[in-house]
């Protein structure tokens, strides 16, 4: 009972905040709405019994969204990115597409026949996840690590202003066509 109520609450919050993300006129607020949406999804995760993932999601999103907000501030060059602004294009198309996607996927959810195999009661999801991670899906885990490493390096290479030898982006352009015949 209580679970059901919570579920509906979380769901409502997730969807509404998600919607607000694009209705607000300040990026910072948008960021926090988004965070809210994620948090409520995390809540749902906990409800269905994968507590670990739920918490992870909440924490990660909290962190990330804070970063995003700060980023916005320093990046968007407007004080706290609080100035009102609407930056929207092809609105009709967007609405149609969004609604279309929603209807399509919802239809899948409602009409499609999914095998009815609910999770057994009392399994410790976290332990299983750990086993899976270090067992059968070792490779997946490794790959994820490698990918994250690549991202770190890549983003650093792209953004860092000054690297090991002075300006990092020095000479990072195409060769010019005007050179004397070598």
């Amino acid at each position: 009972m209580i679970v059901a109520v919570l579920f509906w609450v979380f769901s409502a919050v997730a969807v509404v905040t998600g919607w607000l993300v694009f209705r607000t006129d300040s990026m910072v607020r948008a960021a926090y709405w988004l965070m809210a949406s994620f948090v409520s999804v995390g809540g749902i995760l906990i409800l269905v019994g994968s507590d670990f993932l739920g918490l992870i999601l909440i924490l990660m999103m909290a962190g990330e969204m804070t970063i995003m907000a700060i980023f916005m501030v320093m990046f968007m060059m407007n004080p706290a990115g609080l100035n009102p602004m609407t930056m929207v294009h092809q609105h009709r198309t967007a609405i149609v597409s969004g609604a279309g996607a929603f209807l399509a996927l919802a239809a899948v959810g409602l009409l499609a026949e999914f095998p009815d195999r609910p999770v057994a009661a009392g399994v410790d999801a976290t332990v299983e996840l750990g086993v899976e991670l270090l067992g059968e899906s070792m490779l997946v885990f490794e790959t994820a690590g490698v990918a994250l490493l690549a991202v770190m390096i890549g983003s650093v290479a792209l953004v860092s202003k000054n690297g090991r030898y002075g300006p990092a982006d020095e000479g990072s352009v195409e060769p010019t066509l005007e050179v004397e015949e070598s």
Partner: protein
Amino acid sequence: MPGMGAQMVEFLAEIRPELILAAGGIVVLLVALFTPRRIQSWIAGGAAAVLAAAGAYAVADLADPPGLTFFDTLAADGPGRWATLLLVVTALLVIVLSVEWFAADARQGEYYFLIVFGTLGAVLLAGAADLMEMILAMMLSSVTGYTLAAFHRRSRSSSEAGMKYFLIGALANGAMVYGVALLFGVGGTTTFTGLGAGLADADPLALAAGFGLVVVGLAFKIGATPLHQWVPDVAEGAPAPAAAFLMIVGKVGGLVFLARWVSVLADAPLGWRALVALLAAVTMTLGNLVALRQDDVRRLLGWSAVSQAGYGLLAVVAIGRSSLAVPALLMFLFAYTLGTLAVFGVVVELRGLTDRFAYRGLARFHPWLAAALLIGFLSFVGIPPLGGFAAKLLLMGAVIEAGYAWLAVLTVVNSAISLVYYLRVLAPSYLETTESAQPVLGRKAGWAVAVAAVG
């Protein structure tokens, strides 16, 4: 779990190329961080060595019997191994091309690291036998791809290319993850071994949605419609060697994976064959049509890459219905890779010269470059005895046998169209002439090798 460790070790033995790439890449990175600037370019040698080693092991494994490893998350079969080899070779040649191109760059180290990891990503994608593995492999190769595309951090077009590449890729991945979720829902698992059974009697609606969304992701990877838009932008904006790399690796990895993926769906209630056929048709036609009016050689190559993706999909259409399908796929990838390398090699060699009218008199001043261009293009058209011909031959044979003769006819028409725009580049370089020769970079190895290999 007892014996787990031992098992892991033997698994590791089965993926030596991947391991070497991963470890080697990290080594390259570390070295790069502590090398004085003037000898930064030596790192290229290191990266090349890593790739060579991986390639050696790939060759060694070629003969092994096909099978699955790592609890069925990774396939070690013929196509996968050939793809590995092809990718490694590509990366090697690209590195050769890159040395002078990036000579001025202060951060070459990272570049080579990204090349290595990008290769790794594509290799894993080509070998993936598990949807999760597929997602991550794709992330790996995409992320490196975005970075490589934008690697000229002071170039306006380079950064734009990177950004667009990312925007399209991100959407594709988002859709794909949801698709995987649906497939997981109906199939009960993410490994192909499990899905093969699980999807046989799956609910068609969910299956179609999931498959469609996954195909969207793969279409992005191989540059097929409706996610082809990044290809020309990257071809034009990205650093030429990186562009060559990105034109190739995505297709190799993506197509090989797609081929394996559809063979899982063989008896699922799903119209995947017709869908792929349609994608192929639209892709090749659109690519050729748009390429017709390009005056920018690199962009033209991008669009021709799109049409080539369409040809590649032909092989997938025939999977499971024609014994020619898999050979056709590999032959196509082989010819396409070498042709692309040859042509982009010429572009690199000409310092990224990209206005087709600036190619006047190429045959006169750089006969070998012109020859490379000629061979590469004619191979794309499918003029015998070049590799492209064998590829087209097998592809058409495969689709006809698979009962899609109309695709073969369409391929014919498209080949004829493509000839026109290739000639629009060849004509100036062979028929006209100017006084001034085009300036060139120093080394010629890259395209020389490629040309030697074509046909």
